[in-house]
């Protein structure tokens, strides 16, 4: 596979630099070292720019990928968690609270998948139930009431498909969030950090800007789900991932997201601190830009942003 070959090529070059550095002597000009380093960087960038949708899906789902709690720890101060939907339960798959971002009080909301088996079970693999979406909305309304901007971090395979979730109105909870987020009178800054799984992701992802980490995905259906519908074969997920156009570059081109946030070499899972450092200035820039807008303008801008999404032919002949 071409992908593996190119990865080997990069590794060989990196080893060469290491060797040269170890041998460092006046005979090896610094310029030569620089040249090889530049070549490596170019190859790496090229390599990452050409990851296919399925490779990105695997990175997006990597268990070591930074989670909402990691971003909270690395980017926010004074995080104060808020629990429960005041109606049924607290949903551990959804983390919500207030915190400070560069000194400014804000609300933070995000899904939490869990890293090891124990955490995954406790967090229900990041699949929220209605109480999770209702808790998120409750916190967003607090933020709206006190004029606090909202940051959301999206990382979920989807809303939980189970008997209890249906009984308690999964669809209603999601629908309500979509409608209410459209009119929340404070800036909403959304970042898709890993898996943006359909309605369960969108329910905390209606905002003034939607950023995607370089290797995250955002899709109406999982590639496996799509493959099992089309070919009755979930193992064709690789093909489905490509067909669905779920990668950040594809979605930017389709005009569905606002910005791609670069990840450290090799992917966010390799370096949480570096990932946070790359994300931080993006969040800060958007926040500065959005808090300047008067509320009516902010809301009109948000409405128009979604209003424009979707392509169609206006005057086609129907066969």
């Amino acid at each position: 596979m071409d992908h593996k070959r190119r990865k080997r090529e990069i590794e060989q070059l990196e080893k060469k630099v290491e060797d040269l550095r170890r041998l460092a002597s006046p005979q090896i000009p610094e310029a030569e070292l620089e040249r090889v380093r530049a070549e490596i960087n170019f190859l790496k960038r090229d390599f990452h720019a050409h990851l296919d949708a399925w490779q990105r899906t695997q990175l997006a789902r990597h268990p070591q990928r930074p989670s909402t709690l990691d971003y909270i720890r690395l980017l926010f101060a004074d995080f104060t968690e808020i629990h429960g939907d005041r109606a049924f339960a607290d949903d551990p798959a959804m983390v919500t609270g207030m915190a400070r971002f560069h000194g400014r009080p804000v609300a933070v909301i995000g899904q939490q998948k869990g890293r090891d088996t124990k955490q995954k079970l406790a967090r229900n693999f990041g699949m929220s139930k209605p109480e999770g979406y209702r808790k998120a909305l409750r916190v967003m309304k607090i933020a709206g009431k006190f004029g606090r901007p909202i940051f959301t971090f999206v990382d979920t395979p989807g809303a939980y498909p189970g008997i209890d979730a249906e009984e308690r109105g999964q669809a209603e909870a999601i629908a309500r969030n979509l409608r209410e987020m459209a009119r929340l009178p404070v800036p909403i800054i959304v970042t898709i950090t890993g898996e943006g799984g359909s309605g369960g992701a969108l329910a905390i992802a209606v905002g003034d800007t939607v950023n995607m980490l370089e290797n995250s995905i955002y899709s109406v259906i999982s590639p496996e789900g799509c493959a099992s519908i089309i070919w009755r074969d979930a193992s064709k997920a690789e093909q489905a991932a490509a067909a669905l156009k779920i990668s950040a570059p594809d979605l930017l081109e389709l005009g569905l997201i606002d910005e791609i946030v670069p990840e450290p070499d090799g992917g966010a899972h390799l370096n949480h601190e570096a990932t946070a450092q790359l994300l931080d200035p993006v969040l800060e820039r958007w926040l500065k830009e959005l808090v300047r807008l008067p509320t009516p303008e902010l809301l009109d801008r948000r409405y128009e942003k979604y209003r424009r999404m979707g392509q169609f032919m206006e005057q086609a002949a129907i066969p």
Partner: protein
Amino acid sequence: MAWFKREKKPIEQPTPPDERRVRTEGLWIKCDSCRAIVWKKDLENNWQVCPKCQHHFKLGATRRLELLFDGGWLEQDAHLTSTDPLGFVDTKPYVTRLKEAQKKLGMGDAIITAEGFLNSRPLICCSMEFGFIGGSMGAVVGEKVTRAIELAMEKKLPLVIVSCSGGARMMEGTISLMQLAKVSAALARLDEARVPYISVLTDPTTGGVTASYAMLGDLNIAEPGALIGFAGPRVIEQTIRQKLPEGFQTAEFLLQHGFLDAVVPRKDLKTYIANALDLFLA
């Protein structure tokens, strides 16, 4: 030649359209619910409700408008069609699927939006067509519903949306998903404008349509026996690896759990809507 064809059980999105199509050759239909053999003509005259057991079969988008409007109606945006934005190909190209559905049904996509009169009251009504790629919502359905909402707001006319859909349209990927946000944002404005919106959920209403406009009515009402849910029954069964309880995700189940305002038989639907709007507006 068979004298009757067995009507298939309503199935959620994962079934290919060819298997899903209701078979209507033959002059007779065996009712799926009471197993009585019903003359097709009788079923049609009774708005696709079994005269023996009142089982509600699917009603086409145009027939639905005939049921609700007093007479004719003014259709909106009839010529909006999909551009196949992803160039999507599964077992056949999406453009082929679209052309086949358009040819079969004589409509541009899975919804008719129209202005007309219901018991002499002018209103905007959207009616979904399940026969068109499972009534799925892509950019065209999302745009037509949004325009209908904006028209209702502009004219201060009540809005009725009759849903019948497997959810967001897979072949338009994330564009379909964004329609949920687009339509819901428009409904937030309609809500603020204090224009009434009645959502009618019919068999089946699942996925992204339930998780957006179908659940956002001032009143959410449904037809008896309709399958309504977020996740489809098959997906849930695969996740929890057990059989679903009897009556799970039916209109009656949702009524019992507090997510519907009423279950209204088709024959009473028009009267129910007219009365509700009178109580809201008169």
